[in-house]
C-alpha cells in the first residue's frame, strides 16, 4: 500500500468498515510511514473534537422570545388563526 492508496481508504479505516486484510495493510503502512501516521492521528482528532464540542446554547433573550411566541400552546390553548 502507498500513501495515496491509504488516503483513499482512510474514512473506511477509521470508521472500522474495512475487511481485516485491508485493515492490516493500512496498519503496516502506518507503522512504516511517519507522514501517514501523523495524517491518521490528526484525521481521527478532527472527529474527536467534533464529538466533544459543547452544545450551542439559546440566549436568554431568544428563549424568552420563543416562550412568548408559543405562549398559547404552552398554556394548552389553541392558537388564534392567522389572517
Amino acid at each position: 500500500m502507498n500513501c495515496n492508496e491509504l488516503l483513499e481508504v482512510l474514512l473506511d479505516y477509521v470508521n472500522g468498515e474495512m475487511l481485516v486484510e485491508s485493515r492490516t495493510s493500512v496498519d503496516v503502512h502506518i507503522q512504516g510511514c511517519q507522514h501517514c501516521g501523523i495524517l491518521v492521528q490528526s484525521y481521527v482528532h478532527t472527529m474527536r473534537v467534533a464529538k466533544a464540542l459543547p452544545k450551542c446554547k439559546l440566549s436568554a433573550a431568544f428563549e424568552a422570545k420563543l416562550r412568548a411566541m408559543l405562549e398559547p400552546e404552552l398554556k394548552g390553548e389553541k392558537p388564534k388563526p392567522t389572517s
Partner: protein
Amino acid sequence: MPVRLREEGRMFDPPPEKLTPELVFREYAPRIYNIARRMLGNDADAEDVTQDVLLQVVRKLDTFRGDSQLATWLHRVTVNAALAHRQKRANRQKHENHEADEDSLGAGSSPTPGRKWDIGPEETVLAAEQAGIIEKAIEQLPEPFRDVYVLADVEGLPNNEIGDMLGLSLPAVKSRLHRARLRMRDLLAPHFEGKVTP
C-alpha cells in the same frame, strides 16, 4: 431519573415522558438550535430556523404517535429548514446558487506533511478556547462539506440517514465527509501541531 439528552449516534433522544408543548420546548428547542447554528454559522439565522421548526412541531404534536417518530421527524425538518433558509439567504443576496457538484468543491490536494499533533490519546474535553477555534474552523468549511461534517461528526448521525436528508448517495456523503475532515485537519493543524524540537 434524568432524561439522557444524547447518546452515540442519536441527535434527539426520545424522552420517556408524555409529549407536551412544554416538554418539547425544553428538550428539543436547544437541539434544534444547535444543529441550525452549526449548519448556518450565525445566531440570527439559527434563531429563525429554530422558531419555524419549533412552531411546526408544537402545533403538530397531536399527530405524532410516539417519541421516536417525533425524533425522526425533527431530524429531517431541522435540516430541511436550515437548507431552505440558506437558499433564501443566497437568493436575497442575489448570488447565483449553483448546486455544488463534487468538481466545483475542488479535487483536494494531498495532505501536506506536518508535525505530530500535541494531543492526548483520548482527549475529549475541550477548553473554551479550543472549542472556539473548532467552531470557527467549522464555519470556514464550504457549506456542502460543513453540512455533512456537522451531521456526521458533531451530531453522530449515520451516513445513510445523512444521505436521505441531504439528497445524496452514500458514496457522495462519504466523499464529502472525508474531504471535510481533511479541511478541518488543515484548519486545526496550526493550533494542535506540536512544537518542533531543536
